[in-house]
């Protein structure tokens, strides 16, 4: 709640300073009007401003939601490289923006961000880019503060985030600061034909239930989406659009200091592979993990495991597939000895083809698999490995 001054409109004329009875307005060093703590929100300045740069904003529910336009996608980067999830979100964002007849904007913060035009190729009409050495490593507070500022100034009606570790951390900070809703891990996003509201569908209770959620009275409507859930559009290099580089962005120091980073997962993210071999409890023993790994290697893919195997210490966490691990969307997923707990199924929904092997014909994995093998997964792997090795 408070007086907002739109810097894009303010001409620094100083008319408002005279109109204020509380001494709450002053001109900043760079020539814009700014509000200080003396403000009592009487609204005198709003009418006095000759260019309409001043508004009195009310809290969440009562704020005028019709002022919000456009769809934004927060495009996360690591070491200057835009993450694939940003392109996936733009694919969906394009659809939503078209349904609403508004522009699609990608917002990207980073340092030496490479090829921001790719965001345009992936469907964005516009890119807002803050490129600053201080934004090199994605940190919650400076990112959230900057994004909050942009949202308040420019009023997008929808903001989408990748449900990466960082996205899941920063987005709620933004949401609670601007006092709006945030729906985590959406699997379906669509515009309601009548109300034009964003319908956000997400799994709840480990996927036992799907819930469709709306955010009718506050803006922006915000959602996060897991990597691998939405398909990206084929890049269209003929697309053009504006890339707005924010200048003069102030990034104040926060109470959190980055001391060091340890990069562990580089290009060996299981979400990056077209072929995944996923082992479950049916693998039987830690020693049998060698078959899972070998088969993945022979197929030119990577391997994943279900949660119980992580708990048993048979594989590292980064190989965990499922709700609390990675959501994956490979072209082919071989599911071996995985019973298919609902949390696991929530993480493999994006796979294009699933071949499941399990001794239990009633295993829930067969409810989502495209091909079902009722049998011993060790035998299956041994047979596959033998055949592939023979070919080599």
């Amino acid at each position, binding site marked *: 709640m408070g007086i907002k001054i739109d810097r894009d409109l303010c001409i620094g004329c100083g008319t408002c300073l005279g109109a204020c009875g509380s001494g709450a307005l002053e001109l900043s060093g760079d020539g814009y009007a700014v509000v200080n703590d003396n403000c009592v929100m009487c609204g005198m300045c709003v009418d006095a401003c000759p260019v309409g740069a001043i508004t009195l904003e009310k809290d969440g529910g009562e704020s005028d939601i019709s002022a919000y336009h456009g769809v934004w996608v927060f495009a996360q980067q690591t070491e200057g490289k835009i993450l694939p999830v940003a392109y996936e979100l733009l694919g969906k964002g394009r659809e939503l923006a078209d349904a609403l007849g508004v522009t699609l904007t990608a917002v990207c913060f980073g340092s030496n961000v490479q090829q921001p035009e790719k965001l345009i190729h992936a469907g964005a009409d516009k890119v807002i880019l803050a490129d600053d050495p201080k934004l090199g490593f994605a940190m919650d507070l400076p990112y959230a503060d900057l994004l909050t500022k942009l949202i308040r100034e420019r009023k997008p009606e929808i903001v989408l985030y990748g449900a990466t570790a960082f996205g899941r951390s920063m987005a709620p900070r933004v949401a609670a600061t601007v006092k709006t809703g945030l729906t985590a891990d959406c699997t379906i996003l669509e515009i309601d034909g009548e109300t034009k509201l964003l319908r956000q569908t997400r799994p709840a209770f480990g996927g036992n239930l799907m819930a469709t959620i709306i955010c009718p009275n506050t803006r922006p409507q915000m959602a996060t989406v897991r990597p691998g859930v939405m398909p990206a559009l084929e890049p269209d290099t003929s697309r053009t659009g504006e890339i707005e580089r924010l200048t003069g962005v102030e990034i104040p120091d926060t109470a959190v200091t980055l001391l060091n980073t340890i990069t562990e997962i580089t290009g060996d993210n299981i979400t990056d592979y077209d072929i995944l071999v996923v082992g479950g409890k049916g693998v039987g023993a830690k020693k049998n993990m060698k078959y899972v790994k070998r088969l993945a290697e022979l197929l030119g893919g990577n391997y994943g495991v279900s949660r119980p195997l992580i*708990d048993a*210490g048979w594989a590292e966490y980064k190989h965990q597939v499922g709700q609390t691990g990675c959501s994956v969307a490979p072209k082919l997923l071989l599911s071996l000895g995985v019973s298919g707990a609902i949390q696991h199924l929530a993480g493999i929904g994006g796979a294009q083809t699933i071949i499941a092997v399990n001794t239990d014909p009633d295993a829930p994995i067969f409810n989502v698999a495209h091909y079902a093998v009722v049998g011993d997964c060790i035998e299956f792997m041994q047979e596959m490995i033998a055949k592939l090795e023979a070919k080599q």
Partner: protein
Amino acid sequence: MDLKLIRPMTEEFAEYLRDESRSVGSAEHIAFPRTQDEIREILKACYASGEKVTVQGARTGLAAAAVPYGGCIVNLNKMNRVTAMRHEGGDYYITLQPGVVLSELKKMIGSKKFDTTDWDEASNAAYVDFCKDGEFFFSPDPTEASATIGGMVCCNASGARSYHYGPTRGHITKVTMVLSDGRTLTETRGGECANGYDAVFTCDDGSKISAKLPTYEMPKTKNASGYYAAKDMELIDVLIGSDGTLGVVSEIEVKLLPLPQIIWGVSLLFENEQSSLRFVDQLRGSVEGVASVEFFDSGALDILREQKKKSTAFSALPVIEPFVNTVVYVELHCDTEEQAQQRLFAVGDAFTAAGGKEENSWVARNQSDLDRLMFFRHAVPESVNMLIDQRKQKDPTITKLGADMSVPDAHLFDVVKMYRDTLKENNLESATWGHVGNNHLHVNVLPNNGEEYARAKELFKVWAANVSKMGGAVSAEHGVGKLKAAFLTIMYGDRHIDEMRALKRAFDPKWQLGVGNLFTEKEGI
């Protein structure tokens, strides 16, 4: 043999020559029957040819009872169906084929999901009642949950909760056996009884088997050593615990118990072993609802600490502080939370009285904490096995040597002293855990080399003799099988062994079944 059911033994069946005891036997044939009639066909064929028969379940036994002694293996893994359910007097009874695996059975009972495909109308009606009713369980809980129910009946298996609920025997209401000549014999709880020591078993075809029961007095303690025998006994008890020597168990009916509303566990951390024993002594009789009392000594804890450092598989274990010398786990089964609290505090009082400090305890009041304490208990034998496997690489002749002896309550301190003194005298490394509530400790000797292994084997005979003198049992739960047959003779003496031989002969005149288990054949008996 031309019967299709009986196949010649080939390399692909090699694993069926072994069991968890890691002894290896030999066999000429193997069969995997699916029905009682198939068992009968197989036994009739063997009866005609005189071939010996060794019956197998999941081969998880530690006494080599399932290791074949030549002849034909009858493996019951394929007979793994639940065939009927009965609802009577508020109780539920289920009929099982012998190859049903315990963990599967627990899962079916817990989730109330049974394959009712071939069930008759009465069973289906009982099942409808069962689904509407409260929660039930089958209490016998040997640590190795991949055991089959048939194997459990054959050795009268126990587990931690047998402290409260007793061994398998008490939960079996009906057993059907196929005899060596192909006849079947069914005995029920509350059915045929002996007249003194004279028993007449009525076979399903009406024919009779008359036999003299052994006249020894069984130890007044947990016992899985030799035939169950007592004056005027129920004849079903002769079949339970007979170690595959009287017939092939083909059908079993078990009774389910209502699941207690509240299950809590607490592990008590002791600074020395003596106070842990004082605690057990205190606890017995003073606290109600105690379902199990388990023990882990300093040798076992040291190995656990070591393996926790080495292997990520054990990283979920709680930290075992250096001061902890002995751990005793107590499980409480209660009706209400208030009752559970009272009992927990009573355990605390006994702990304090025995010299413990209440803050040195791990209380589990929800499933995830109970699972963690269970993981701790199961990690002990597993980590010891890992250690032995490492040592075996240096000297392949050694294996773990585990005792399974129990004594009456009055001898708890004596038997522990005996183990400690003799292990020290012989300079042998050991790790001990087990069912201290029943004075039933698995003392495991961990030999470093063949020489220590041989010394340990001799020591076990000394223990068997001493435990027998204390009125104990040489096997409390694993059964005698082939490995402990010598101990059985030490326990009962030749005369009583001859009585057992005579009983077997009445069932198995050609001495074909479970040969080598319990005792050896003797001419003229």
